């Protein structure tokens, strides 16, 4: 198959309206994050909420803007699980040490 055929095949993206709605959602979540910073939440609560919201935003960008929602599912399986696995591997080394260091802090 040549590139042209591929390019034509993969062209089932979202409409302008949908993309605009996704974009408004992203901006809204950004302002929600800033509002949370303004509210002075507990650092751990704040961090948890921010990471969850960022993951939601990343999912929105990848699904609609980067067209992953409209690609073959085999591509998603190729890219995403391996990436998540590698990031989890980084956290395996992060967590025990991080908690130990947190306990070693002077109070």
């Amino acid at each position: 198959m040549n590139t042209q055929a591929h390019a034509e095949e993969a062209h089932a993206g979202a409409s302008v309206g949908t993309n605009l709605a996704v974009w408004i959602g992203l901006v809204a979540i950004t302002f929600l994050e800033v509002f949370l910073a303004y509210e002075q939440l507990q650092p751990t609560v704040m961090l948890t909420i921010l990471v969850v919201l960022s993951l939601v935003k990343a999912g929105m960008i990848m699904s609609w803007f980067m067209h992953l929602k409209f690609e073959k599912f085999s591509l998603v399986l190729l890219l995403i699980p391996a990436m998540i696995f590698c990031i989890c591997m980084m956290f395996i080394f992060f967590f025990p040490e991080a908690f130990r260091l947190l306990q070693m802090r002077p109070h």
Partner: protein
Amino acid sequence: MHDVKTEAALDSAWSGGKSPFAIGSKKLGMWLFIVSDTLTFSALLITYSYSRLTNPDWPRPFPIFPAIAFSTTMTVVLLASSLTMVMAVMAAQRNDRKKTVMWMVATMVGGLLFTGLHLTEWMNMIFKEHFTITGNPEGTPLFGAVFFGITGLHMTHVMIGVIYLGIVAVGYGRGKYSAEDVEVNGLYWHFVDLVWMFVFPLIYLMSVKY
């Protein structure tokens, strides 16, 4: 002669001679690059988290106004440039070369504006607030390495993205590149935006000065 099951297997996307993911090699290449670059930024952000846990005197140098208001503006500018990139890719898929180039130039303007605002912020921090890569007046000197390292690497990605957009816009306008090239460029640009969606909350919003 093959039986029905063998025929079905030979006909599948995995039997060779086809692209099993139904995308061009350029797009697959860009996706693989994005995965590896995601891991680079993940490693940096995890290093930042670790440094932050180990240093109780981590500075919180960003008051809501002006610093957070400023970086929120930067975030909105970058998000807006992502929307113009979406429009460019859609125009390229309609084979509308003029509109594609126009939207790509708009995306470049967004990228340049973001870089300009970011550099303004950096200059203000370095020369007025005395935050440098090796020290600062408010706490552990590690802050500078982390802050300038992560935001600097992201800014480098934005600048490279602007150059990349310029090359593809000129090439596409002249008929040298296809709509697929514009789409692959779009993937890179959205990725840069995606990274900022983690940098902004973790670096800025977790370091608000009250």
